[in-house]
């Protein structure tokens, strides 16, 4: 069933994968390849204390003696799946301080984990062992904004929502939007090339980011904070850092192009009887909505039910959702309210026509509050999954025609292993950015167990490879998927990535054991 290409990839990675497949990977254990890095000592603490403010240092070592539980929020990831054992968190306030920290760590061969909002979903933002945590939280100033060009320059530690709030009175918005916006940092967004809910309309960060300020692994500050829309002078180095997940350097400043706030927005949730209607609906919407379409999100019945059950957003009425197996959230953003409403109204009349049989029912937001509520149902699914149990997340890019198949096959597979039960796998849901070909397959389990992990991996990765898809559409590789990299990138690519890593970071201190397989 696997294509020849996928089979080659699978075989190429198999030996390494088997060694690291056990649950113990989640804790720093002897199975993780040693990298000749040193642990942080009291002498190092003394050194950092000589140039950092006391409030910038959290360490369980003497003389700081911070209680270990104060470091837990930094050591553990958002899902509670990956737990580091760092003894030190540093929160520098300036790029200079970041540079001094990194330079010292490079000389002493101390591993560093750059950390933003710690909302990542692949264990990329927490230590694997006791690497030093470099938090960018205190680098949180907006440096400049040009209302004519819409170019915003900000420190990496600015929380996305705070940038959104800053831009609002200027009538601009951020080109990315994601459920974690209240906590994630723009530096982290850039380092992970975050996708989010607006990619369909505003493209990826590879296009929106105009320049970066990065502290290289040897402490050198690379200042490419350009505010130019067009600049074809030499190799575009910033593209390497966008999506490098902190393994090539620490992003300390971002220059980003922000779009004008749309004058009119609308949100519609449509209930579809079965998967067969989703693709025809999408084609009509793309054509009829044209330039005003800003999001086309998708949730299966289970995802919708779970989300409203856990109070993420106000539910639609029973009549609207009766018999619907899939829900689609469509957002439009345009310059003219009446024009957009007319387009939307015509579309809805067309798809609601019983002769087309595309849509059974749906709701249209009548106020900004309802708009937020409809979006909350979609944005709240990850949190709802987390409340239902321990989450296994597979964020993949596959052809949209396979969106139902991947869920059905995974469910059947779990069923065949006898794992679909209250004390093992409780929920299997799917949702995602349909317009981007990106589906989030989530499994809520009673607990993370080797049995469930073994049932899901590499099964899901192999399925994705068979569709020639990506094992990580937007979440990145982090720690969780280093062994899966081979399912979507060939050996030549991986070797070249390793060479670049060696060039930028010869001592391997930057976010060790992440992204590239060891």
């Amino acid at each position: 069933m696997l294509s020849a290409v996928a089979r080659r990839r699978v075989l190429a990675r198999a030996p390494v994968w088997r060694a690291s497949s056990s649950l113990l990977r989640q804790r720093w254990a002897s199975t993780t390849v040693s990298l000749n890095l040193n642990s942080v000592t009291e002498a190092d603490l003394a050194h950092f204390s000589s140039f950092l403010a006391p409030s910038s240092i959290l360490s369980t070592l003497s003389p700081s003696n911070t209680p270990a539980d104060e470091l837990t929020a930094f050591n553990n990831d958002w899902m509670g799946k990956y737990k580091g054992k760092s003894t030190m968190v540093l929160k520098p306030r300036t790029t200079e301080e970041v540079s001094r920290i990194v330079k010292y760590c490079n000389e002493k061969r101390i591993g560093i984990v750059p950390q933003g909002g710690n909302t990542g979903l692949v264990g990329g933002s927490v230590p694997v062992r006791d690497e030093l945590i470099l938090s960018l939280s205190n680098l949180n100033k907006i440096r400049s904004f040009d209302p004519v060009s819409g170019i915003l320059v900000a420190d990496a530690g600015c929380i996305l929502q705070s940038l959104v709030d800053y831009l609002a009175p200027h009538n601009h918005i951020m080109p990315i939007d994601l459920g974690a916006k209240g906590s994630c940092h723009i530096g982290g967004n850039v380092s992970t090339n975050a996708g989010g809910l607006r990619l369909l309309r505003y493209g990826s960060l590879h296009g929106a980011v105009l320049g970066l300020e990065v502290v290289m692994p040897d402490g050198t500050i690379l200042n490419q904070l350009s505010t130019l829309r067009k600049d074809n002078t030499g190799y575009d180095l910033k593209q390497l850092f966008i999506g490098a997940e902190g393994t090539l350097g620490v992003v300390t400043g971002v220059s980003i192009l922000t779009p004008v706030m749309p004058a009119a927005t609308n949100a519609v949730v449509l209930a579809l009887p079965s998967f067969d209607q989703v693709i025809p609906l999408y084609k009509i919407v793309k054509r009829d909505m044209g330039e005003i379409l800003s999001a086309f999100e998708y949730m299966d019945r289970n995802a919708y039910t779970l989300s409203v059950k856990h109070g993420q957003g106000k539910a639609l009425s029973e009549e609207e959702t009766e018999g619907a197996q899939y829900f689609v959230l469509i957002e439009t953003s345009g310059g003219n309210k009446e024009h957009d409403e007319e387009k939307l109204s015509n579309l809805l009349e067309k798809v609601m026509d019983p002769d087309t049989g595309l849509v059974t029912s749906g709701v249209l937001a009548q106020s900004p509050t309802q708009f937020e509520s409809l979006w909350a149902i979609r944005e709240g699914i990850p949190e709802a999954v987390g409340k239902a149990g321990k989450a296994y997340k597979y964020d993949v890019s596959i052809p949209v025609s396979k969106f139902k198949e991947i869920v059905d096959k995974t469910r059947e597979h779990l069923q065949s292993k006898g794992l679909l039960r209250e004390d093992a796998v409780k929920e299997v849901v799917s949702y995602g950015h349909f317009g981007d070909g990106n589906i989030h397959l989530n499994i809520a389990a009673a607990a993370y167990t080797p049995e469930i992990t073994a049932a899901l991996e590499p099964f899901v990765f192999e399925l994705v490879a068979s569709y020639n898809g990506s094992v990580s559409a937007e979440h990145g590789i982090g720690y969780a998927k280093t062994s899966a990299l081979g399912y979507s990138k060939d050996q030549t690519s991986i070797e070249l990535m390793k060479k670049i890593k060696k060039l930028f970071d010869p001592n391997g201190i930057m976010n060790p054991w992440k992204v590239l397989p060891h």
Partner: protein
Amino acid sequence: MRPTSARLLNVLVPVKRCVDYAVKIRVNPDQKGIDLSVKHSMNPFDEIAVEEAVRLRGKLKDAVKSIKVLTVGPPKAAETLRTALAMGADSGIHVELPETAPSPEPLSIAKLIKASIEKQKEPIDLVIMGKQAIDDDAGQTGQMLAGLLGWSQATFASKVEVDETNKVALVTREIDGGLQEVRCKLPLVVTTDLRLNEPRYASLPNIMKAKKKPIEKFQPSDLGVDVTPILETIKITEPPKRIGGTKVESVDELVAKLKAAGITAV
């Protein structure tokens, strides 16, 4: 011939188009008004009122003969009526004011609603409306309306049960310190409180149907009401801005700052 069955109920729901609940309010430089070039939507308490009327029909079925919604406002206010129609109301009444007219006061609104009720062919039995509008927070219109009409009133309702046979309603009111149950004879003015219900989204089939529902238009002069304001707004200001606190690095610094602020040990 005496009618053998009780007359069916006619319900009126006045609704107001206000600045949306989620918008950040900005006071104009002249300090006489606020920036109105922002998103507007139906007053949330009025949404609850419309929802209650629709639920009443759900419970009493054919006993609810009609649900009319009414609004007083500029041409754009017709959108608010359409939303109410999309939630399940049958027809609308739009008392239209010019775009530039000053915002009408509660007393004027109450008079306009009374005049509209008197103009209806069939008597209105129940008026359900929001307890207050979120732009002025006056909370007066419902009470004034009941007074002008000489009707019963049950304000801040968190539960409404209508006995259409006996023309009586049992309303639970939210008051300081708890809940109060009142039995009221119809006709009745009810004003809604937050906990009465959670309004539905407007469903697409209903939005389609709403486009065809009738809306009657009136001018205040048609209803014989003078809407000239009798109150003058002297000044509007924002609340004083909160100044952020600062973190201190040590106990010594804290003590030094306390001393500098003139706080001494007792």
